[in-house]
């Protein structure tokens, strides 16, 4: 029953055991046991709820100016009696409510950007790894070349020419971030293609499309999800930088990066206008990184048993990646 017995058992039996043991419940209890990852996951969940339900959940209207409540510090009460958890800005708008609405923009750019670049990159990477040849050569040259170029600089230039905005940001992120997915998808495809199950699928006459969609892709999901999580964090940070420089999200829409840029004017009198949105970005990116680290540990076949079996003694499993 112990992990040691399982790892010494023959390969086939072991795989069977593992598949049976890894149910949603096992993942959940493993998540509960890792306190840091658990807190991160809860934070991200709350953030998603706050972003999605900002219209109903926000205590104040994020765009409603209230001149009697200008520059209220965090945990302060305005002259009209309104309590402001994170304070108010130069127009008396509630910062907490604005952060919730900003979360919607920042999170959707991160998510959509990662989804679009992921789909583009994974498609190209799998095709390159599956069919090899000239396609693979050209694609990998392009990946190496693009990875060597400064992406923030190029993003700025393209946005300068085509104009800023939500849709253009997604377009830029797709153009400049597909390479990481392509690189990983290709190398995973190359590894799995050597496997017996792909040969078997081919031997019984499976078409290329069927092999890719039903055999190859499902086996590549977990590392790609880890990468996807990390990319969301990267994109949220990039969006913040571009919006800060004035080439990202445009008013009246507001994202966390744009809020920092606006708050900068009042840096000597109202520090919270700069600190709070940046802290939101920091915590979100941190939570995404921590969850990704946990997901990497738990989906790694070598480490997974340490997590999915009930703990023996007090020692927490230690994830030592790299």
């Amino acid at each position, binding site marked *: 029953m112990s992990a040691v017995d399982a790892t010494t058992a023959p390969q086939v039996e072991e795989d069977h055991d593992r598949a049976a043991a890894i149910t949603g419940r096992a993942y959940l209890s493993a998540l509960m046991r890792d306190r840091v990852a658990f807190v991160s996951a809860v934070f991200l969940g709350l953030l998603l709820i706050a972003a999605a339900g900002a219209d109903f959940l926000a205590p104040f209207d994020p765009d409603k100016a209230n001149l009697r409540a200008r520059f209220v510090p965090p945990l302060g009460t305005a002259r009209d009696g309104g309590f402001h958890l994170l304070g108010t800005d130069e127009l008396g708008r509630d910062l907490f409510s604005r952060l919730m609405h900003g979360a919607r923009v920042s999170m959707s750019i991160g998510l959509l950007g990662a989804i679009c670049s992921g789909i583009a990159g994974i498609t190209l990477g799998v095709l390159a790894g599956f069919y090899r040849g000239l396609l693979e050569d050209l694609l990998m040259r392009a990946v190496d*070349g693009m990875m*060597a*170029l*400064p992406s*923030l*600089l*190029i993003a*700025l*230039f*393209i946005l*300068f*020419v*085509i104009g800023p905005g939500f849709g253009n940001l997604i377009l830029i992120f797709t153009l400049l971030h597909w390479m990481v997915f392509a690189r990983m998808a290709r190398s995973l495809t190359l590894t799995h293609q050597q496997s017996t199950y792909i040969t078997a699928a081919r031997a019984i006459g499976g078409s290329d499309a069927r092999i890719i969609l039903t055999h190859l892709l499902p086996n590549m999901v977990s590392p790609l999800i880890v990468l996807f999580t990390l990319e969301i*964090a990267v994109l949220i*940070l990039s969006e*913040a*930088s571009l919006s*800060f*420089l*004035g*080439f990202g999200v445009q008013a009246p829409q507001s994202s966390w*990066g744009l809020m*920092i840029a606006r708050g*900068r004017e009042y*840096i*000597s009198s109202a*520090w919270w206008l*700069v*600190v709070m949105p*940046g802290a939101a*970005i*920091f915590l979100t*990116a*941190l939570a*995404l*990184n*921590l969850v990704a680290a946990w997901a990497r540990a738990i989906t790694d076949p070598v480490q997974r048993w340490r997590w999915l079996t009930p703990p023996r003694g007090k020692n927490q499993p230690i994830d030592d990646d*790299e």
Partner: protein
Amino acid sequence: MPYLLRRFLQSLLLLFVLVSFVFVIGRIIGDPALIMLGTSASETALDQLRENLGLNQPIWQQYLVFLGDLMQGDFGVSFRYGFSMMPSDALRSEGTPVLPIVLERLPATFLLAGTSLVFAFSLAVVLGCLAAMHPRSWIDNLVNVISLASVSVVQFWLGLILIIVFSVQLGLLPTGGFGSWQHLVLPALTLAARPLGRISQVVRSAMLDELSKPYISAARAKGVPEWRVVFVHALKNASIPIVTITGDELSQLLTGAMLVETVFAWPGVGLLLIDSLGRRDLPMVQAGICVVAALVILVNLAVDFAYTVLNPRIQMDNRGGRA
């Protein structure tokens, strides 16, 4: 073909691709006249500028002229830099050549990026080695926390926080500008955060690998002092991944400097570029992008050169690239 020659030619090709890319985005996807004059300009003004810039010629001819000019170091002239903000200035026949202005700004950026890198690198090596010497100790935890925080923080925000603490609250250091060493402290610290986290993590794991090898036990058994074992014997052999990550971080620094320079009004290439974007000064933007990107490519090439010195095996390996 020798490895280094091939890498050199690859870099040249990459530079060519980049320049062509700038041309395609600026000339074909965008309309330079519209970019420079703005959408409110009259049709006659737009036509006149197109005529002046030679935009009425066939596109391939424009491309050849563009490439030819670049070869001679001619990135065009700016009608905005040093002039008033009137859009009609763009119609003047004479402007300021942009390349000298960009190059003039380079030393400030080098000073900032260099200081940050030296600081981050030396601290990261010490921290990473200490962490590897004492796994699971507080210093090991510290390295983990720093590296996790450094990839999660937005650089320009960190800069603003430092301004709030050290300039606004404590009044110790200037909020921005250029001149004395005090002006350098905050921007350099801001820029150093990310490489510090990334490099120390790599140093730690590379050193952990090295310290478990038999030659280390042999050195210890001979009675070599522990500091010598770690900082001389092991560090030398762990240097390849450390150099790789440092090179990566240096090219990141050059673009990261753009944001930090904007926050601290540090007069480097980055600030010039951001200002020029705001002024819709297309020639200056193109020159700035080409110069910074060329530097990034150059840094990558230099890292590969350093590599072959550190590890002669790479030269022999035909497919050898960076891990």
